[in-house]
């Protein structure tokens, strides 16, 4: 990136901005989702976040059917969309791989065809984030960068953080840690909260299930925990059936975290809410129909709690004051 480009004009690939997010950092927040990730976790609930480029998605549930609409077929300059079975259009993904303007999605009146990912400037993104300032002020919330791996778009992410800081928006980040160490060090001073994924401590298992080993992830975690003593960190483990939903793995993670006394910990039970999006992208659902055993989840939480005590965040519905 050219040095002359001011932070507010930096552009990056954003695939969603979500208001009123209350489970990713303190207070009421807006999450900005950046595209691109180095990992390919089989359980990823945001498959549309993985590639750096825009993805064309097809949501059959919203499609009106070719007999009632069919605008996409007419709009496609490559002839890549045709009538399939049961009145729905079928996309030849190979034929449209190089298409830039995605005319089909613009022609679709029903948001049945949509594009995940759009180049947006820092200014544009923050103007949306700033709309909820009145809520951040009261709840001590703000902006959470997420993805994908938000720090992978290094220049854009850093520009966003610097500019948000300038505008007095409190920033948090949700990271998988799979980025260069320098990026982590550059981002940290602008953050009020880090949500850091620790998925597994065994490098081989990690590589097998996410495509990458975990050394760099753990190194980045140590950098944040040791070099930035005022930065609150919440380590998070998505608990995935067949991957880390066992006592040994969870115990190892808890014990790894134990010496970092200011790091809090949260376990996120696997859910299948992302399944739909794999289908939108014409991709196989890597996890199939697997579900997490709720009882096991409780036992694993007990285990983590025995190591970390109150540092483990547990969801609980407070019983009514009598």
């Amino acid at each position, binding site marked *: 990136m050219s040095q002359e480009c001011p932070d507010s004009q930096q552009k990056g690939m954003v695939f969603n901005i979500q208001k*009123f997010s209350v*489970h990713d950092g303190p207070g009421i927040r807006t999450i900005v989702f950046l595209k691109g990730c180095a990992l390919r976790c089989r359980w990823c609930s945001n498959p549309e976040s993985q590639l750096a480029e825009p993805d064309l998605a097809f949501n059959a549930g919203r499609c009106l059917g070719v007999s009632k609409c069919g605008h996409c077929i007419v709009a496609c300059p490559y002839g890549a969309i045709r009538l399939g079975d049961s009145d729905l259009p079928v996309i030849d993904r190979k034929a449209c791989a190089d298409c830039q303007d995605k005319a089909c999605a613009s022609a679709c009146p029903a948001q049945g065809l949509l594009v995940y990912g759009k180049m947006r400037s820092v200014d544009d993104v923050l103007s949306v984030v700033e709309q909820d300032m009145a809520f951040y002020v009261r709840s001590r*919330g703000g902006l959470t960068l997420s993805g994908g791996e938000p720090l992978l778009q290094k220049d854009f992410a850093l520009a966003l953080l610097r500019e948000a800081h300038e505008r007095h928006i409190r920033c948090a980040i949700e990271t998988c840690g799979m980025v260069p160490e320098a990026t982590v060090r550059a981002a940290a001073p602008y953050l009020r909260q880090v949500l850091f994924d620790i998925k597994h401590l065994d490098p081989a298992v990690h590589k097998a299930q996410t495509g990458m080993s975990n050394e760099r992830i753990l190194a980045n975690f140590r950098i944040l925990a040791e070099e930035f003593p005022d930065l609150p960190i919440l380590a998070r483990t998505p608990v995935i059936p067949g991957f880390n939903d066992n006592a040994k793995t969870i115990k190892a993670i808890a014990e790894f975290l134990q010496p970092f006394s200011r790091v809090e910990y949260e376990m996120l039970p696997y859910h299948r809410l992302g399944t739909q999006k794999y289908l939108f992208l014409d991709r196989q659902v890597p996890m199939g129909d697997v579900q997490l055993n709720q009882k096991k989840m409780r036992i694993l939480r007990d285990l983590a709690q025995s190591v970390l005590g109150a540092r483990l965040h547990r969801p609980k519905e407070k019983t*009514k004051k009598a």
Partner: protein
Amino acid sequence: MTQVCECRSPQEQRLQDKIEGKEDKFRKSHSRVFKLLERFEGQKPRIDIERALYFTESMKETEGQPLVLRWAKALMHVAKNITVTVQDDQLLLGRAGCDGRYGILYPELDGDFLDIAVRDLPTRATSPATITPEDAKRVVEEIAPYWKGKTFHEDLNRSLPPDVHKLTYDDPEGLISRFIVNETASFRSSIQWVHDYGKILRRGFNDIKREAEEKLAALDPMSCKDNCEKRPFLEAVIIVSEAIVLWAKRHAVMARAMAQVEQDPVRKAELLRMADNADRVPGEPARDFWEACQSQWFTQMFSRMEQKTGTTISNGRMDQYFYPYYLADKKAGKINDAQAMELLECMWVGMAEFIDMYISPTGGAFNEGYAHWEAVTVGGQTPDGRDASNELTYLILKSKREFPLHYPDLAARIHSRAPERYLWDVAETIKYGSGFPKLINDEEVVPLYVSKGATFEEALDYAVSGCTEARMPNRDTYTSGGAYINFAAAVEMVLRNGRMKKYGDQVLGVETGDPRSFKTWEEFWEAYKTQHLLFLKTAFHQQYIINKLRAQHFAQPMGSAMHDLCMKHCIDLHQEQIPEGINFGYFEYMGLGTVVDSLCAVKKFVFEEKKITMDKLIEAIDANFEGYDDIKALLKSAPCYGNNDPYADAIGKEIDKISVEFGGKYSMHDLGIHNDVRYVPFTSHVPFGKVVSATPNGRTDGFPLSDGSSASHGADVNGPTAVLLSNYNTKNMGMRDRAARMLNIKFTPKCVEGDEGTEKLVSFIRTFCDLKLWHVQFNVLNKETLLKAQKDPNKYRNLIVRIAGYSAYFVDLSPDLQNDLIARTEHEAL
């Protein structure tokens, strides 16, 4: 979705427990009220005709006398003759009718409907009620005939000029509403109201009577005004003060008689104490908490017999006027919190039993689910501008969490310095899941009321009244229910050149021309504005006539006796102008979201992007979008109100401006009262939607309009913060001719789970306060719960749902309205 369902709101948990046959966890600590409630659970309300019967009997005898005096005499006749009941286990005395769930009749209001109503009420789809054959016969033979030709409704129907009549009623008799510029004055004697109960607790009716006697003695015997106007008023005040005391003492006699035969010594002592209370209050000042509750309750119930106030009479600032009695009793060791709560809950039971009966079909459709809004206000500020919360505030909130029914309609005032403890308690109570309390914002209400002429002291002491209104019981004065205006119909009339699909070739609006000939968005907008102004004009003319007629049909000696200004000037509250009073009327903007979204779609797709022609749009709308699914989908993708989208919100603000500007010009200076724009539909957005054909926002024929200042169904895709901001964006903050805006926000329990969730809800409420929005209420529920309840109503009989400014039982609502609720966007944060 499994994750979402894991988390049940406490209300859902209680339902689940009930289905599984477990005992309610609060039953033990509230055994008296549970016992009382179980006696009428699931009962269809009964119509009690006594009030109507005795009222009519007396009115037959007093023709020709001043109305206020006739009214007082009628109430005296009721007080002497109405059956007096002492219920087992109750601690408070005073009912307006029979045991169980009941409603009473007000034939002076809409008695011309009575014979039809007694035939239809038991079987009508919305809010049915039962009546015995003997009573039905008496209604038809003894009550209804007297009122034929005399009711307010008939007079109004006769008095409306043809241009106003045709947008008001669909038939010459005025029995069927057009649902365009709908009048609401004929199914309630006034807009909602709240009395200064504190005055009765401090002074008692005997002291008010004494005041009236002194004034009477001081009248100038030569003066016309003194003798023809003030004298009958003061005599009426004396009669009505005697009437309520007489009625109370009849209860004392009965309670004492029952005590004599009572075997249980505990109950015997209770009955004797209740008899002593009824001998003392409301004639004399209350001396302790029990007497204070009894005095308030007698006053409230007698007031309900006096007239039908819109949405029943409200309870005022209960945590303020009861507080001295509560505090003194606590200090003296006379009462503990459990006992105080039991007394309050005995009152809630009485409220639950009283049904606000709407006998006209239009009234019934407006107020589905036996809705009533006897708002109890807590919190807020003192007249001195300090935070007003106290121990009683917290006790009432606690009772709201534990009492199993959706009574009373609880309203919490919020201000910028509201203590954290108060907001946490409010938030925890909301999380319970029944939608209570609703929140009203001092930071909007107080400055507005000051700008309209109130002193700071008066404005700071306002009480929530009815659905979302705010009253200053000694400063503001009555007016009749205002027009509910269907502005979605204005959009339809633009598209159909002054006509509506439902009414065929009849020209109802202004013929603004064939929209196919419009070259620019500005032309379309001007056409909308023309229809909008026609509706406003019609509503104001309607109101003008209503205000003139009202004083000829209604009087309210008891309510007037409790009002400082009426006593000062010796004038009944129903008179058109009370010296020094401030008249807060309003009209209703129906369908804000529907109209904004429709105008956005037209502006964007027809005029700016030219994606469809006007011709095509009208073709699709005529076909109710059948065969035009792509156009319908496109229209739905237009910018929508409720998303903090500047495109939509700018149009919303312009629409609001037409109304506030019109009000600024024609309210005070011409109509003679404040007539402010309000966005509070109750449940009427459903019947209003039924008359409007498909609209350019992709809404189909007959579908409900958007509700209050909430977004169209499912259109608010950006979450609850955006809904709040859109509300803020569409307000003309620099103008004063505005009243309440009702805003519903629905959360799933997951969103507000745990202490962290409560904290977020508290901060959300603080932001609501910062934005100076008038009202908000929350619904913490799962969609699944509603779907289950719809399928199996018997199991979910006590499922409380928040709709349109009040709570009702979900299963009491029509399938139409149930679907409407389910269709609203849930704000889930996973």
